[in-house]
């Protein structure tokens, strides 16, 4: 029973985890992209469309990532090159993505999709409990963990990560030191787009293998909350994503087991927890300095 619940939680958490880890990198570089939902839904539709036309899940995933990258490039061009307001541009990106995905997807409504196969890791998958939970998943679930590990390592153990964080913390000094703030931020934004696209592909190729309009149903926004909940720390994103996923799944189990709690109350817990976490880290000056990208949401134009 617990194993089965955990499997459901993994599917519910994976798209949140992937989108959030991408947005975490974006925000670490000092950019706030509120268009996660729009990039994610474009990933979902392109992933489904290409997988459906070619019969290849791998090509579908690739197309979804490309779609996310293309959307984020549009965002990056506006907010980084043209110094447009980040909040407004991110919202516009979501509107565009939802419209555009619906347009592309019209031909794929009511078409059964193909589901990504499970990749069974021989030997390990036979371990009781851990086997099925951790070693019989589809490719994207494995990728999600690899992504978190890679991001955690890169951000805190490599020079690239150091520069990225420097750009997010103080773009003025980073620029003075000779780093191209715009280029580094652009890379981060593209990475975020790729992750959102991949998260979308997970929805349309693994979670519920089909295309329907608005199928992201607000998950992009939850990913934004997750980044904050994790206080911009990659490993905590896993905790957050699984917590968010678990709350929703447990909500349903609580009902099936006849427990009488208003579902809205349980659903609002993650958001309240996010605010609490935010207050706790910002009230503590040392934590704030370590974790919060100080330049988040601020535009940068190099003087010359």
């Amino acid at each position: 029973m617990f194993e089965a619940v955990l499997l459901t939680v993994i599917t519910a958490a994976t798209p949140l985890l992937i989108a959030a880890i991408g947005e975490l990198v974006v925000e670490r570089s000092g950019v706030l992209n509120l268009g996660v939902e729009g990039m994610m839904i474009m990933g979902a539709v392109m992933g489904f469309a290409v997988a459906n036309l070619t019969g290849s899940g791998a090509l579908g995933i690739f197309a979804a990532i490309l779609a996310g990258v293309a959307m984020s490039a549009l965002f990056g061009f506006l907010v980084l090159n043209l110094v447009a307001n980040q909040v407004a541009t991110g919202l516009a990106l979501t509107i565009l993505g939802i419209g555009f995905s619906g347009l592309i997807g019209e031909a794929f409504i009511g078409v059964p999709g193909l589901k990504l196969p499970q990749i069974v890791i021989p030997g390990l998958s036979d371990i009781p409990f851990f086997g099925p939970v951790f070693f019989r998943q589809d490719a994207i679930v494995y990728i999600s963990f690899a992504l978190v590990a890679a991001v955690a390592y890169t951000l805190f153990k490599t020079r690239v990560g150091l520069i990225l964080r420097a750009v997010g913390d103080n773009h003025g000094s980073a620029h003075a030191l000779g780093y191209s703030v715009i280029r580094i931020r652009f890379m981060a934004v593209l990475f975020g787009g790729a992750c959102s696209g991949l998260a979308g592909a997970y929805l349309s190729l693994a979670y519920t293998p089909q295309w329907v309009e608005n199928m992201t149903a607000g998950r992009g926004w939850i990913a934004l909350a997750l980044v904050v909940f994790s206080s911009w720390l990659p490993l905590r994103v896993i905790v957050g994503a699984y917590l968010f996923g678990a709350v929703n799944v447990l909500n349903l189990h609580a009902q099936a087991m006849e427990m009488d709690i208003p579902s809205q109350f349980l659903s609002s817990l993650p958001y309240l927890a996010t605010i609490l976490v935010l207050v706790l880290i910002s009230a503590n000056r040392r934590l704030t300095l370590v974790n919060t990208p100080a330049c988040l949401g601020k535009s940068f134009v190099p003087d010359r």
Partner: protein
Amino acid sequence: MKSLLKATAAAAVLVAAGSAASAADVKACFIYVGPVGDFGWSYQHDQGRLDAVEHFGDKLETAFLESVPEGPDAERALERFAREGCNIIFTTSFGYMNQTIKVAKKFPDVKFEHATGYKTADNVATYNSKFHQGRYIIGQIAAKQSKTGVAGYIASFPIPEVVAGINAFLLGAQSVNPDFKLKVVWVNTWFDPGKEADAAKALIDQGVDIITQHTDSTAPLQVAQERGVHGFGQASDMIEFAKDAQYTAIVDDWGPYYIERIQEVLDGNWKSESTWDGIAEGHVVMAPYTNLPDDVVAMAKATEDKIKSGWEPFTGPITKQDGTVAAEDGVTLDDGAILGMNWYVQGVDDKLPQ
């Protein structure tokens, strides 16, 4: 300013000439709450519209607006239709009820048809289908096929229609196996594939081996297919999504009703009525029975015939969850009791959200 107006007027004339006024005898307009691509509720209404287009050919012109939020946006959409010369307007969501009544008052010559509501006026009719008749049949199938004796029901909102559906399903099941049990999960949405899939998984994990739903996406059936349990399609035939898992589907077929009502507008004898038809009239259709042994198919078809001949699933003896009698043996609940149903029958493993 004047010249601007003139230029606009000239453009309007040009455009009007360009588009060549259509020669249709009647214009029917539809407003949908979801995207026509939901493959569920709104999709089926649009299929009904297309049936009418096919039936009437050049005599009929149609227009539709999709994903219209309930509220002021719906009111504006209805006003637009009325002004654009629609003769009959179908408003296909319960939440359009007050707006429909409001706009209908302003345009007494336009006929309005509101789906699933309970308010009528001289130019506002209501229509709905007896989906619970189909649910009785799938309940019987579930009881025949289930090994665990428990089915799972993914429900949207505790409105009478949904509650009646749950009760009809269980009454059908209990007619085959009196001890049959039903677990209900409320997802508080009509349409969220991810959440519906999670609900299906939660129910399966709690030991049900038949899933049924009163939500619109195909996701629960896909989960059933994956987990090797079975289920039923909702609103449209979803067999393509679950070749081995779908036993049948309760299909909403609005086409016959739309054709009938548009014909009445053409003939000039449209009246405001409350239509509530079911399997007998072809408004509720059972999709082909698949993945079932012959005797179960025969039973389902026999029940279908019984309903067509006028029998009603809500016929006593019916006992409420609290043990009181809802209908004595042989007594049939009247339409009002079904349309306002806010109690469970005995055997539902859930407390009705109040």
